[in-house]
């Protein structure tokens, strides 16, 4: 710790802090453009100059380490003049196009120019003009506005791990560009728009759509992967205009991936906005009452045990709970949430959580990735692991087909039998695990959705046991889900033995006659064509193809709901807008349907529903808390398959009904994805 004085306030800060950080701690604002707390220090904008006693000149506070006895002045006459000077220099070449600039109203340069600028300019020379650069379908560039802070370049290098941005030329001719003006091929590319302190990089899909002061912000939770990234939905009227990340150090720090950010236009396309029923083989618009009557007539004729239910990847816990209650009241317990046929079981929570927590990747010193394509399954987590791998040079081993995770991994090969070798200590990597203090393994979807998933689960469990993954304050056994609803579904015990395949088989055999499908769209549902299918969901996707009755539900921005992320952390998403047309919040549909069936559910409000949920499943009541689960035995002893892992996500941009409906995501998928993985998948 060092003590220094800033503006007459004595403050104690950690050794190694910079003056700007110390000032922040003291609550003193120092203007800046290039400095960003999550990026390396560049020190090139000069906006953060402060006066340091005994120094001949002003110093850049972002790059000056705080040291004992320093005396800093941040608002002296000299500093004020310096800021005016820096502002004037920055504005010499900055166009005065704020009225047509999308950054207007939330622009650092605009704000700081008002707060610290001189108020007038003295130059009459021509301004520099820079041609626009192509950076991909998500980033609109107006490079004349660029002030060369290089935040975007540092982000690409350090956080995204895709070093494709750079500053070419020199002096006044310096330009920020991608290499050879190709698209910035990163799943995290949208973040450079947030980082840009001026309007040089703006969001292309959002271009000229809205002004910040017209928007109503709602703090909510993302559902495009299972991390539960904290987001803010900005809506105008009945449309969500954009999604921005919210700061949450435990989950997403301040980044989100491009799918979470830009799939938002999918919320307005391909929507189910009124009930439909298949009448004489054709889907026809009906009223809610007619839809309910058709369902009631069918259910009355059918034995309760012949009813089954599927839940999808984007459902909130409340609606899954309501559905479970509804089909239970009809006499069935067949409700399944594992669309991908994963071998995870709901019996012990520790067996399906990301137990080390997402922030655990900041502590671990050896990582074993088992068939998990982190970059596509959880891009934000991948970049966090990457930062750790680069900064701390820890050992990361990867098992599965060759992929580029943006950092160096030890390739162990594409064979589950290697796990056996590691367990028996015959493998090179077992030495690394033995030495590691806080080792971690991450089981991906491809490892668990194989037919020998249970055996892999068991092996992973035994490796965790043997190599000290389970300590008093550390559990390095991690399962990475890709569905936002999955952990919630498992917590609600929405599993049947044999998984989704047993439901398909039941339909084929005639044991199951009615399938209630609530938003399951990620798997081939043709096996359901023999059953009476009720589909409830927000988008016309795979699920509606075999539906006999369609009930229009709402998407994640249109309802308040609980989501449990991979860590087992319960978070509440909030409603930003109302659903389109006749679409209703999912639990209200189920409540109304139960009424029509004469089996009225015991809750009339969301509050009552939640109270019932908390009573039966107390884990849901612990909002925003990180659970810690007791280690236990799980998995099954069985023979391993000979084949390699098949990574589940071949196209990062097309993994949910919302993303598939989004034209922005479709464009991304076309432009950004010349991944060899995609070709491999196409060739089987």
């Amino acid at each position, binding site marked *: 710790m060092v003590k220094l004085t800033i503006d007459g306030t004595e403050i104690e800060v950690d050794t190694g802090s910079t003056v700007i950080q110390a000032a922040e701690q003291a609550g003193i604002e120092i203007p800046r453009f290039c400095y960003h707390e999550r990026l390396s220090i560049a020190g090139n904008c000069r906006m953060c100059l402060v006066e340091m006693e005994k120094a001949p000149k002003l110093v850049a506070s972002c790059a000056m380490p705080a040291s004992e006895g320093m005396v800093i002045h941040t608002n002296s006459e000299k500093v004020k003049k310096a800021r005016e000077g820096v502002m004037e220099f920055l504005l010499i070449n900055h166009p005065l196009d704020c009225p047509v600039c999308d950054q207007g109203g939330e622009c650092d340069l605009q704000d700081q120019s008002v707060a610290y600028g001189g108020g007038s300019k003295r130059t009459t020379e021509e301004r520099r003009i820079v041609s626009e650069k192509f950076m991909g379908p998500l980033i609109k560039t107006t490079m004349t506005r660029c002030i060369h802070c290089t935040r975007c370049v540092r982000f690409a290098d350090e956080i995204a791990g895709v*070093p*494709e941005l*750079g500053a*070419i*030329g020199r002096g006044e001719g310096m330009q920020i560009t991608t*290499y*050879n003006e190709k698209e910035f091929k990163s799943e995290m590319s949208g973040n450079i728009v947030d980082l840009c302190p001026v309007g040089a990089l703006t969001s292309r899909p959002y271009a000229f759509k809205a002004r910040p002061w017209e928007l109503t912000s709602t703090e909510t939770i993302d559902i495009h992967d299972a991390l539960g990234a904290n987001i803010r939905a900005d809506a105008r009227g009945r449309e969500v205009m954009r999604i921005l990340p919210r700061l949450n150090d435990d989950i997403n720090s301040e980044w989100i991936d491009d799918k979470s950010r830009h799939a938002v236009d999918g919320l307005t396309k391909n929507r189910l906005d009124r009930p439909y029923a298949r009448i004489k083989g054709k889907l026809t618009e009906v009223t809610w009452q007619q839809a309910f009557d058709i369902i009631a007539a069918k259910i009355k004729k059918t034995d309760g045990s012949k009813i089954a239910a599927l839940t999808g990847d984007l459902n909130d816990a409340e609606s899954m709970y309501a559905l479970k209650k509804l089909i239970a009241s009809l006499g069935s317990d067949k409700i399944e949430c594992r669309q991908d046929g994963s071998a995870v079981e709901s019996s012990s929570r520790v067996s399906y959580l990301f137990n080390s927590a997402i922030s655990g990747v900041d502590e671990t010193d050896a990582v074993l990735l088992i068939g998990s394509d982190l970059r596509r399954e959880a891009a934000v987590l991948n970049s966090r692991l990457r930062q750790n791998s680069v900064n701390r040079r820890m050992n990361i081993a990867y098992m599965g087909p060759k992929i580029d995770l943006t950092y160096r991994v030890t390739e162990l090969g594409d064979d589950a039998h290697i796990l056996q070798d590691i367990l028996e200590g015959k493998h090179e990597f077992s030495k690394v695990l033995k030495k590691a203090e806080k080792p971690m393994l991450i089981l991906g979807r491809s490892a668990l959705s194989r037919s020998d998933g249970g055996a892999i689960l068991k092996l992973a469990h035994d490796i965790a046991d043997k190599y000290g993954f389970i300590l008093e304050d550390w559990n390095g056994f991690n399962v990475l889900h890709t569905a936002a609803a999955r952990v919630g579904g498992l917590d609600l015990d929405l599993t049947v033995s044999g998984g989704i395949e047993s439901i398909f088989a039941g339909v084929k055999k005639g044991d199951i006659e009615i399938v209630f499908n609530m938003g399951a769209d990620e798997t081939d549902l043709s096996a359901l064509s023999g059953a009476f299918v009720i589909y409830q969901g927000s988008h016309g996707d795979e699920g509606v193809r075999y539906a006999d009755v369609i009930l229009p539900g709402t998407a994640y921005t249109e309802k308040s709901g609980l989501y449990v992320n991979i860590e087992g952390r319960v978070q509440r998403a909030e409603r930003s807008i109302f659903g389109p047309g006749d679409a209703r919040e999912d639990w209200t549909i189920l409540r109304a349907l139960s009424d029509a069936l004469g089996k009225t559910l015991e809750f009339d409000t969301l509050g009552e529903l939640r109270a019932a949920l908390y009573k039966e499943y107390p884990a849901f009541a612990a909002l925003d808390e990180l659970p810690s689960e007791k280690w236990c035995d799980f998995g099954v002893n069985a023979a391993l398959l000979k084949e390699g892992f098949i990574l589940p996500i071949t196209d990062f941009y097309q993994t949910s009904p919302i993303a598939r409906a989004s034209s922005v995501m479709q464009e991304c998928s076309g432009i950004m994805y010349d991944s060899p993985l995609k070709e491999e998948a196409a060739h089987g």
Partner: protein
Amino acid sequence: MTLNLVDAGAFEFSPENKKWAAEELKKYPDSYRQSCVMPYLHRAQEQNHGWVSIPIMEYIADLLDMAYIRVHEVASFYSMYNLKPVGKHVIEVCTTTPCWLRGSDDVAAACKKELGIGFGETTADGEFTLLEVECAGACVNAPVIAYKENYYEDLDEDTTTAFIKSIKAGKVVSCGPQNGRFKSCPKGRATTLKDFAPKELLKAQDSKGSDK
């Protein structure tokens, strides 16, 4: 300076250059391989008729484990790397203050007139490229033209025209001062420090006889 990247055919160091490249890399610690980027770019530019193409940058980036954009940043930062094809003869005219004070405007004008092109341009026949450069570091003999690793100094309009004509004729005038000066010694007879004056200078002056 151009920021356009011009693509070209595949590139690889010649066998001699490969040998040289391996030796050059030994000068740097293994963790600082990328320090070798500038000598590599220079050598590659030499091999590639005076300019650096995209395949060259990518080839060097791969050799040194660098991101492509990092090599491009270096290549575009220094004006000594040409990012588009140049003519067989590259004429670099210094126009920085000392040269300018001594008449580089005349030199530049003579070049433009004789070659029929402006700065940064190449003649239609691909023979000449005319470039404006910053201080060549030979202010004592200003104004200066750099051509093929040699300096042509103390130029004026006529000597510049003669110099370019000599290139066209295939018999390049000898490098150094073009006004009869010996290196950077004073024009005319040495008046002071005679004891230190190089013998060649005194000899040259003696053979010409007295200036007065």
